[in-house]
């Protein structure tokens, strides 16, 4: 039973150090919003430089005099922008918003509980994550600048210290500390999600009746529990190599900046194995909440049940399990035993099956539907389209023989941006438009929302589909510029992508404006604006402090009762005592 807490008094207890999962969820979302704006601005600078390498960025010289003297982005500055962009987006946006943000707000309500199982741990998990973000951002302000080794921080570049170049001094250490803290925050959060889902379900809420988003959050938290527990020791060992003179990841005989490095016996491949053992499940942590969110919203907007819900849950579980068996596909060419490549490619290809099934279940749900085209619905439909695109390009990279050509090229960048930067983001957008009324008691503006969707949907395809073309032509990733003759011919396409990226970025202003305006001036929201079934719609918008006003609900149905003759319309709410109509 959670430490039940009465409604808090005072600004600090209510809004800052709150134990209430709803406040904590909003705090996570606020953090993610700051992070995504930061990450997006970094990407604009990167794209600017890629399109026009000799053009100065007006005003940047004042902000970063060393990194971009007179506004000219230096190669090391580009790489640090890239490293911070990846780190901020993967950790502080894609892990934070769909999982910690929406999950925290909704999971206790979905199971019918008053709060998470461990509210104090929950509060700690947010503030540790916040601290992690602060530590990461501080890397921008240290003398040597932020790290330049990518979000993957491969050793020895990341492990030898400042000899390796700009950004590899204090900046890299701060990165490792930040990520270590982030792991701790996520582990505390995972404990809460797991205990709450298993132990705090209200009367009648069997596991089979859990909403699909809740299943996704639960499975994601189990994946995270295992994955972050491996990244944390990896970061500790990396920090020790950097500051304590150990050699976990650095072999002997390295000459960097004309200095023979004082390390011996370490293995750069060890870092890669530890990192990717975390790293691959991490990308499923980023996408599975989106799977759940789409499966949660789609029936409500299609006015018919999700097709094959038990199969869908089985897909989530299978993907979660298989996600631990595939990490080597990031390392086909790493120098590990080439037999392992074939070994890893088999589960990598097999994991496409549950992902395909899930996609087909969504498309099958749309068959014969009566769609309500609100913005949440549009982003779900868009999710399906971009997930198909991103998932299929993974098919190429899963085969070692094809990866020989495509590894390290823009094909990979296009692939992971489609599945993470676009599909997972669309999941976040869908969740925002769907649950904003519940969270803030006001409706968002639908006209702005639809324009946001259309411009973003077209925009992301213009940004990321061409990257596959570049990759096929052999264009290499992580290059700050395409100088000399190599791939100079790709410059026009890079410029097209840059224009599309800036345009798509500008379209996000519609979203930001909509958020702020609706928060204060949106029309008041009813308890159930979408005629949806799950428990959050059985309580007020926003919910009272203990979620259900002192009366924990009793659950009579699963979440999938759409397209049926119910008392309130073509659906039956989970908490409604009316009987299910005869089949």
């Amino acid at each position, binding site marked *: 039973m959670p430490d039940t807490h009465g409604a808090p008094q005072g600004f600090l207890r209510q809004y800052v150090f709150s134990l209430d999962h709803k406040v904590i969820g909003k705090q996570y979302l606020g953090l993610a919003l700051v992070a995504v704006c930061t990450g997006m601005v970094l990407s604009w600078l990167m794209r600017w430089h890629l399109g026009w390498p000799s053009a100065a960025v007006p005003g940047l010289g004042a902000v970063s005099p060393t990194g971009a003297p007179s506004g000219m982005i230096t190669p090391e500055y580009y790489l640090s922008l890239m490293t911070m962009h990846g780190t901020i987006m993967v950790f502080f946006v894609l892990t934070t918003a769909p999982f910690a943000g929406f999950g925290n707000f909704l999971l206790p309500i979905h199971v019918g509980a008053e709060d998470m*199982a461990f509210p104090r741990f929950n509060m700690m998990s947010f503030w540790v994550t916040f601290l992690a973000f602060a530590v990461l951002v501080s890397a921008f302000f240290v003398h040597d600048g932020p790290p330049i080794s990518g979000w993957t921080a491969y050793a020895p570049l990341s492990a030898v210290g400042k000899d390796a170049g700009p950004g590899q001094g204090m900046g890299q250490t701060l990165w490792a500390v930040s990520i270590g803290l982030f792991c701790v925050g996520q582990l505390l959060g995972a404990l809460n999600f797991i*205990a709450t889902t298993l132990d705090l379900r209200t009367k009648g809420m069997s596991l089979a009746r859990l909403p699909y988003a809740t299943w996704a959050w639960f499975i994601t938290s189990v994946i995270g529990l295992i994955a972050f*527990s491996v990244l944390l*020791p990896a970061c500790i*060992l990396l920090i020790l190599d950097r500051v304590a003179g150990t050699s976990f990841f650095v072999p002997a005989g390295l000459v960097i900046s004309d200095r023979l490095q004082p390390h011996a016996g370490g293995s750069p*491949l060890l870092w890669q194995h530890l990192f990717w053992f975390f790293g691959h499940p991490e990308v499923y942590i980023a996408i599975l909440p989106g799977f759940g969110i789409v499966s949660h919203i789609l029936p409500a907007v299609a006015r018919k049940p999700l097709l094959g819900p038990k199969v869908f849950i089985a897909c989530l579980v299978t993907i979660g399990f298989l996600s631990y068996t595939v990490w080597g596909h990031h390392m086909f060419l790493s120098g590990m035993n080439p037999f392992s490549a074939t070994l890893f490619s088999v589960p990598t290809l097999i994991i496409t099956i549950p992902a395909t099934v899930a996609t087909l279940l969504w498309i099958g749900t749309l068959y014969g539907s009566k769609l309500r085209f609100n913005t949440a619905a549009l982003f779900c439909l868009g999710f399906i389209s971009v997930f198909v695109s991103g998932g299929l390009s993974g098919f190429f990279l899963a085969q070692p023989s094809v990866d020989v050509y495509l590894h390290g090229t823009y094909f990979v960048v296009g692939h992971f941006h489609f599945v993470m930067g676009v599909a997972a983001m669309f999941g976040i957008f869908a969740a925002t438009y769907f649950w904003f009324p519940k969270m803030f008691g006001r409706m968002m503006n639908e006209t702005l929302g639809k324009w946001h969707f259309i411009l973003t949907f077209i925009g992301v395809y213009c940004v990321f589909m061409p990257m596959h073309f570049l990759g096929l032509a052999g264009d290499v990733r992580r290059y700050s510029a395409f100088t000399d003759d190599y791939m100079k011919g790709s410059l026009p396409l890079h410029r097209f992508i840059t224009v599309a990226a800036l345009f798509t970025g500008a379209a996000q202003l519609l979203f930001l404006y909509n958020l702020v305006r609706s928060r204060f001036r949106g029309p008041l929201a009813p308890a159930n604006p979408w005629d949806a079934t799950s428990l959050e719609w059985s309580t007020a918008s926003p919910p009272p402090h203990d979620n259900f006003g002192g009366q924990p609900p009793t659950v009579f149905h699963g979440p999938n009762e759409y397209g049926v003759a119910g008392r309130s319309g073509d659906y039956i709410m989970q908490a409604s005592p009316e009987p299910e109509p005869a089949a």
Partner: protein
Amino acid sequence: MPSERARTSPVPAQTGVVAGIAAITMTFAAFTSAMVMRKGGASDWAPLHLPPLLFANTAVLVASSGALEVARRRLRRDAPGGSMWLSATLVLGVLFIAGQLAAWRDLAAQGVFLATGPSSAFFYVLTATHAAHVLGGLAALAYLRYRVRRATIAPLGTLGAVATYWHFMDGLWLYLLVILTVFV
């Protein structure tokens, strides 16, 4: 009603501890596999002579688990002395940590530090990480003792969860002792 639910469904604290144990197991699995890969990948592995104090510390930790079990039984049967045996567990736990610190000083006196070699690096990392988690367990035990002394009914759910965690720290230490002896 929430109290009805508490009788039929597992206590969240217990679920949380089990999940936490899974996480900690994965962390030590990661360290173990790192150690195996590091030892096998280079020829600079010098075996470490473990300070004999470690074995005495092991006895102390096992005794603390025993004390905790006595405390648990007493509290479950509402017999007297539960709080005293909890205090004994705490004292033995603190003694364990002190013993580990002394063992590190022993090694340092022999000139074996974190960066001396890969075997010593793993020794310090593994024992320090374990000790850090034991400290967390001590904090939980202290909190539990505080709750027991304050309450008329013993918080059996929390007691069970803390006991599970503490016994796991014990078992984890035995595992580490084995691999440190055999492997390092």
